[in-house]
């Protein structure tokens, strides 16, 4: 039987959840025996080359590209997992949700204390660039999400246990140490 195929991506996240995945340490050798990676920053495959079994999503959606990638994942993965606070709730990027988008753009490109070189007052509007959404959306508001792994980031053991459970079909181990946050 061929190995289950896993894809991962980071949308509006900080790559912290991917770092946490790498925190499984030497078990990564076990992991590559268990699964095959497809589209993912881990192996740097940029586009889906086959149907996948499991998609791990880090980050919510703050721009149009995030939405396209997420929908692409939904299309190509049997099971989609929101990994971490940003994917589940929007997380830190969603702090902007109470602020009008115009104000956010102004702060980032014109008025912010760290803006010094934009003398021509250019606002990014090239057609190639993703378009900013009015607010940051959690993944489950865009596509159906099957599972949620909480944490900022979720502990390596939590991600590991979830992957093992999905791959083996066994019940997931959820000891207190793995889901406590302080």
């Amino acid at each position, binding site marked *: 039987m061929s190995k289950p195929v896993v894809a991962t991506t980071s949308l509006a996240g900080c790559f912290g959840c991917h770092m946490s995945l790498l925190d499984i340490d030497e078990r990564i050798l076990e992991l590559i025996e268990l699964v095959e990676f497809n589209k993912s920053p881990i192996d740097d495959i940029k586009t889906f080359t086959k149907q996948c079994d499991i998609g791990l999503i880090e980050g919510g959606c703050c721009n149009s590209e995030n939405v396209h990638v997420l929908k692409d994942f939904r299309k190509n993965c049997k099971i989609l997992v929101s990994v971490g606070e940003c994917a589940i709730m929007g997380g830190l990027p969603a702090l902007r949700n109470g602020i009008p988008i115009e104000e956010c753009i102004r702060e980032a490109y014109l008025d912010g204390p760290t803006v010094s070189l934009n003398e021509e007052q250019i*606002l990014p*509007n090239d057609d190639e660039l993703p378009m900013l959404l009015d607010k940051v959306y959690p993944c489950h508001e865009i596509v159906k999400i099957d599972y949620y792994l909480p944490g900022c980031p979720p502990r390596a053991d939590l991600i590991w246990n979830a992957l093992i459970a999905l791959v083996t079909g066994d019940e997931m181990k959820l000891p207190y140490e793995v889901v406590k946050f302080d």
Partner: protein
Amino acid sequence: MKDKVQNIIGEYQNDKNRLMDILIDIQAEFKCIPAEAIETIAGQLIMSKADVRQTLSFYHFFTTEPTGKYTVYLNDSVVAEMMGRNEIAKAFENEIGVKFGSVTDDGLVGLFNTADIGMNDQEPAALINGVPFTNLTISKVKELVAGFKAGREVKDMVGKCGDGMNADERIMSMVNSNCQRKHGSILCLEYEVGSALKRAVNITREAVIETMRSSNLRGRGGAGFPAGLKWEFCRKSGGDINYLVCNADEGEPGTFKDRVLLTEMPEQMFEGMVIAGYAIDADEGVLYLRAEYYYLKAYLEDVLQKMRNDNLLGDKILDVEGFNFDIRIQMGAGAYVCGEESALIESMEGKRGEPRNRPPFPVQSGYHNEPTVVNNVETLSTVVKIILHSADWFKAIGTRESAGTKVLSISGDCKNPGVYEVEYGISVNEMLEMVGATSVQAVQVAGPSGACIGPDKFNQTIAFEDLATGGAMIVIGKDRDLLKEVVLNYISFFIDESCGSCAPCRSLTLILKNKFLKLLNGYGTMKDIDELYSWGKYMKQANRCGLGQTAANPILTTIENFRPLYEALVKTDDEFVSEFNMDKAVEASCKYVDRIPNVH
């Protein structure tokens, strides 16, 4: 300003436990609690400014910005909306030229929404500078606004007074008591003020408690805890001082019976308090009166003074050596959760009205950490009649588990809304006939925290063992959109009133609302209905107080009893539907950076 604030604080002996009263007086004086006042309070009471702020930010009627010389708080509860409050709100906005939630530039008028003000049988209603105006019409609004502009006194704009004691010169309010059963079998029986107390002091304190225990009197606030047992627990707690508190913070939307008991028969309730005070050996009683009933305060104070003059209150009551008991009135400032007894005690101590962890229960450690009995207005009023007529007489009325009568506040789509004293055991059908309600879709029993039931359950009876209620009964007619007009309003109500202490109550209420809106907007799935239900069920076990535990009830009980209404909102067989709309989501940012959206 500093002098005025200092004087106010001085009136309360620089006691930080009286912070509520201090803030209420400052709010009344300045129409807000300005930063300068906060600083003065903090300095004089030797507490941090943050502590002052955390109390004041908790209550609806405390503001840090001025609310206008004329402050209008228009009720936005379900029944108010049924009776046309939205047209009244529009009329106010048109006449005054500002939207609700704001004050005119000249500071003359402020328009604000508020949760139920206890006038459901005479909606639409508003409080203007604390004075209730009921049965509002568009022409009345025009008259009021003309009055504001002419600088008239709010009291002078009341016009014709309401029925019963509302016309008394100490109240002079247009509120109607609408006592629909003037000859009820317990509370409404005529009696001589003081006669029950005379009887009580002639028997021992233990004997009074025993009478209550054998009468099976249960708390009328909703939970139904046996009153005699509560008194006994308090008496046996062995504290230094015991306190007796009467809970007149009826904030459950749809309840107004305490308002009527307070207006029409306050002596009976106060006498019940004194008897309870005697039984539990308390020196001090407190009537915690909801802010919305401020207009009754002067009248109630006068009744208390009269009782003091008649030796029914104060030192050596009825010349009984060592029986000293007095009552003070503690005003609330607009917080539904303060109806919960431990939150109410926190509020009485000048703090945020956040429920305490239990145990210890208030009877063990309540007001100032001393044993405290908190009873409802109706419970304490009933005490008087039990003492006068005997426990057996009382027990013979009502049902086996629910002795006596219940005062119901009935409102909504019926001919005769108002207050009814009925025997426990009356069926919902009988009740509907009594109030002249035909073509009924649903009855909201016990307010939003209770249950919404349909005609298949109208043969159920009002009693603790069947349909328990604190008294609110809202009749919802066949033409109403139950989910949009009733359930949605209740969900929002709980979001506003949650104290925020327990995470599920703070967050899940909002998550449930979003899911509910998703259904209303036509994006829902069958799974959403199931999730609303299963997530809502979680509230019961995951929150500290009754508010959080029941906050999902509007959704839960309507899914149980009116599931087809939910299913009719589902337009698809799909398992997942997204409300996300890319065109809309990128519109604003593209416009701002001068770019043509390309969403494909």
